[in-house]
């Protein structure tokens, strides 16, 4: 809602609505319905959850960003705040646009510091009491709020009713659907009473081109399923649990299984057992679980077992803040664990990439017989965004040098760890005749049996380490965004993508042209592409959600000599907003 003064004639193109309250208020539910409603009106949507790490009682808020153009994540301002709790207003007022509207259940405005409310419109709306009096239960406050928002945003009530019935008809029956539809209408009526005509927005509606609205965790889970994952073992952890919780609904239809293990040590070891026996196997976790998996990660490297690990980063160290996003574990998988072994680390920046890269991760794992990490962040994993439909046609299954029973019967002397020119050896599966071997965590000979001979060790080490030497055509290359000729360059990976792209647009408006190299494979490091990009820049900003600039450190370790890299860092509890990237650039480039 960038153009506040002429609301009555200007159609809104970009919008940020925040739902705030206490944990347990149904903030997530309300926001998700609004997100789906906006999506069905043809808008691009990105949600952002800012939740405490508990179930009830603490302040929580959920922002729904919507745009007719692209919506990637947080914007710098909130246009409408719907607060179930007036304390929330105090926290969020500084972020509310000067033309913004605040709805609050209860008395709130009186506590505001002087000047804080300048230009903003405040309305109290008795959601709870209306819910109790008219519908008998406080829980209807969420639908009342949605009705009120739909009124001021001029949203289509037919669509809202349709969403309500999709949600409740099967599970709760007609009566619940009817009551919720009535509650939405009552909320709208109330909003019409308390707001003036000029506070109502006119959204330009587009046809919903059958796009998707989903979270990164869901996209990863779906990518896994499409990519042939049939064994998934994990221990619940925020913000990765949704991957297994989604898969468990669908995997059995594909003759697969999800196992909840006793811990993350078990999860990765179990996936390795399954992969050894022939499944495309995967686990998912976050930082603390990743630390527990490091030993088995090394085993995957040594025994050359293909496995995929999705790591949804959260704020650390230690237990940190489990519900906040961060990119503090980038180097954990690249340099992590004991000993040296090849590994692949992928970093999706969009939902489409969450799906594609995860599906492809299984091919990479099996072709190169290495562990593959899909590294993402809470911001991507748990927030919902709109995405184009996924393309199943492009998925090909390549199981690499996995031999069949027939292949093995034609071979004389099967060697699981055969020294080959490309370092990749044939695999057999338990139960196959002629393929008996040992998957060995000790240094071993070509058959898999322990061997401590100096020459064996040297040859085996070189064999493993050369597997990825020629992998680059199969790896996902960096994506170059923006003006190729620009002298200002950004380098980043993962869910910072949206904020960087929006910052680039803003910089363009301010006559600063820029380009952006989005790394999608972090390891093996795409050295040639990064070198080429850096050599075409005068100023380079590496944008990352951590304290020490892990991505910049990685680049400097791989590009030598390296141009000066400027860190744009954010290790706070919130993802980047575009403005936080624009201002450090302007400081340098003005």
């Amino acid at each position, binding site marked *: 809602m960038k153009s506040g003064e002429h609301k009555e004639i200007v159609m809104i193109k970009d919008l940020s609505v925040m739902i705030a309250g206490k944990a347990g208020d149904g903030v997530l539910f309300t926001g998700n319905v609004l997100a789906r409603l906006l999506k069905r009106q043809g808008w691009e949507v990105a949600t952002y959850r800012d939740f405490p790490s508990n179930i009830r009682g603490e302040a929580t808020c959920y922002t729904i960003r919507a745009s007719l153009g692209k919506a990637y994540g947080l914007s710098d301002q909130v246009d409408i705040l719907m607060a179930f709790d007036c304390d929330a207003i105090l926290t969020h007022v500084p972020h509310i646009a000067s033309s913004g509207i605040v709805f609050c259940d209860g008395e709130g405005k009186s506590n505001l510091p002087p000047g804080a409310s300048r230009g903003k419109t405040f309305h109290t709306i008795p959601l709870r009491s209306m819910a109790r009096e008219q519908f008998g239960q406080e829980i209807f406050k969420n639908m009342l709020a949605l009705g009120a928002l739909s009124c001021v945003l001029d949203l289509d009530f037919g669509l809202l009713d349709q969403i309500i019935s999709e949600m409740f008809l099967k599970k709760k029956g007609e009566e619940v659907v009817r009551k919720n539809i009535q509650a939405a209408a009552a909320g709208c009526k109330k909003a019409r009473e308390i707001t003036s005509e000029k506070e109502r927005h006119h959204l330009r509606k587009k046809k919903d081109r*059958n796009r*998707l*609205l*989903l979270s990164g965790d*869901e996209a990863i889970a*779906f990518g896994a*399923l*499409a990519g*042939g994952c*049939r*064994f998934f*073992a994990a221990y619940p952890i925020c913000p990765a649990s949704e991957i297994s919780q989604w898969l468990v609904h*669908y995997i*059995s*239809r*594909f*003759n697969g*299984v999800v*196992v909840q*293990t*006793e*811990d993350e*040590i*078990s*999860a990765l*070891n*179990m996936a*390795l*057992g*399954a*992969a*050894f*026996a*022939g*499944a495309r*196997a995967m686990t998912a976790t976050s930082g603390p679980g990743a630390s527990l998996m490091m*030993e*088995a990660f090394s*085993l995957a490297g040594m*025994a050359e077992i293909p496995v995929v690990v999705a790591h949804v980063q959260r704020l650390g160290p230690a237990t940190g803040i489990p519900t906040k996003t961060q990119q503090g574990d980038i180097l954990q998988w690249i340099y992590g664990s004991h000993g040296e072994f090849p590994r692949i680390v992928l970093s999706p920046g969009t939902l489409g990439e969450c799906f594609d890269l995860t599906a492809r991760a299984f091919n990479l794992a099996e072709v190169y017989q290495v562990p593959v990490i899909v590294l993402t962040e809470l911001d991507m994993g748990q927030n919902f965004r709109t995405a184009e*439909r*996924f393309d*199943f*046609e492009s*998925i090909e*299954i390549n199981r690499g040098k996995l031999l069949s029973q027939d292949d093995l019967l034609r071979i004389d002397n099967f060697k699981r760890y055969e020294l080959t020119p490309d370092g990749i050896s044939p695999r057999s*599966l*338990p*139960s*196959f*005749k002629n393929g*008996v*071997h*040992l*998957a*060995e*965590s*000790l240094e071993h000979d070509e058959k898999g*049996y*322990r061997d401590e001979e100096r020459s064996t060790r040297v040859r085996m080490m070189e064999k493993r380490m050369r597997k990825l030497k020629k992998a680059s055509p199969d790896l996902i290359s960096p994506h170059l965004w923006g003006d190729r000729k620009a002298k200002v360059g950004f380098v980043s990976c993962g869910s910072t993508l949206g904020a960087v792209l929006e910052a680039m647009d803003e910089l363009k408006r301010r006559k600063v042209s820029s380009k952006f190299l989005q790394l999608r494979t972090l390891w093996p490091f795409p050295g040639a592409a990064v070198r080429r990009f850096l050599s075409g820049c005068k100023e380079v900003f590496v944008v990352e959600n951590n304290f020490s600039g892990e991505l910049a450190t990685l680049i400097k370790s791989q590009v030598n000599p390296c141009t000066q890299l400027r860190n744009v860092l954010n290790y706070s509890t919130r993802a980047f907003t575009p403005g936080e990237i624009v201002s450090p650039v302007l400081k340098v480039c003005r």
Partner: protein
Amino acid sequence: MKAKDAYHRIDPTWCRGCGLFGIFEALKRAAATLDLEPEKAVIVTGIGCHGRLNNYFRAYGFHGLHGRTMPVATGIKLTNPKLQVIAVSGDGDAYSIGLGHFVHALRKNVGILYIVVNNRIYALTQGQTSPTTSFGMVTISTPFGSKDFPVDGPMLALAAGGTFIARGFSGEVAPLAALFERAMRHRGFALVEVLSPCVTHNKVNSYEWFRQHIFPVDSVPGYSPKDKNKAWEALEHPEKIATGLIYEEDKPAFEDLVLPDKDKPIAFNDLTPDRASLEKIMEKFG
């Protein structure tokens, strides 16, 4: 019935007199009796002297990390339930570093034979105290005597919901082979703890010592492995160590409960994307 030599890959190089020889022999006999194809068996081992078994026993093998046999074996069994999955651990592997996994494998009742080779010492690392070392025993890590009270694996297993709990002695190969055989026929998780002297690092718990301290439960009048109270009683014997099949119970195995189709192993799925099904799932995101 196969010849037991079918499973003999090479001669073991354990210390002469090691209890593991008896286990190796008993396992070969049990496999032969069951007519087990070497390629249908997978032996998953941990870290310790027992871990060399993979080099000697002809079968598919997975020699993983210290203490992690249970999750690896579970992953294998669920991926291909037609395999005979045999996990082997030492007392350190099973009851110390891998204790958490042990309890959960029991709880899940996964169809694995778990052989725990209990020599009451850390042998591969030269003789430190283990979780089954007797209280007060002098080892290289406890020169003033161990101050830890030992754990009892079969007792833990009974408490954790184990459905087949047995204890054998590597000095008595024939009954041990019979236990292994019976354990492999059991549906669900089968624990066979084997009292197995370490002739190099444990001079206390020798063959002779074990012979004096064990009693077979089937020598107890009226003993039934179906009777949990009797099993507790046998395990809590103040002086003697119960051997034989201590407890047995019929419960569904984890693989029977969680796999969509046990006759169609996950290992051999056709992974070609089923586009129609995927399209249908995608509708949920509309």
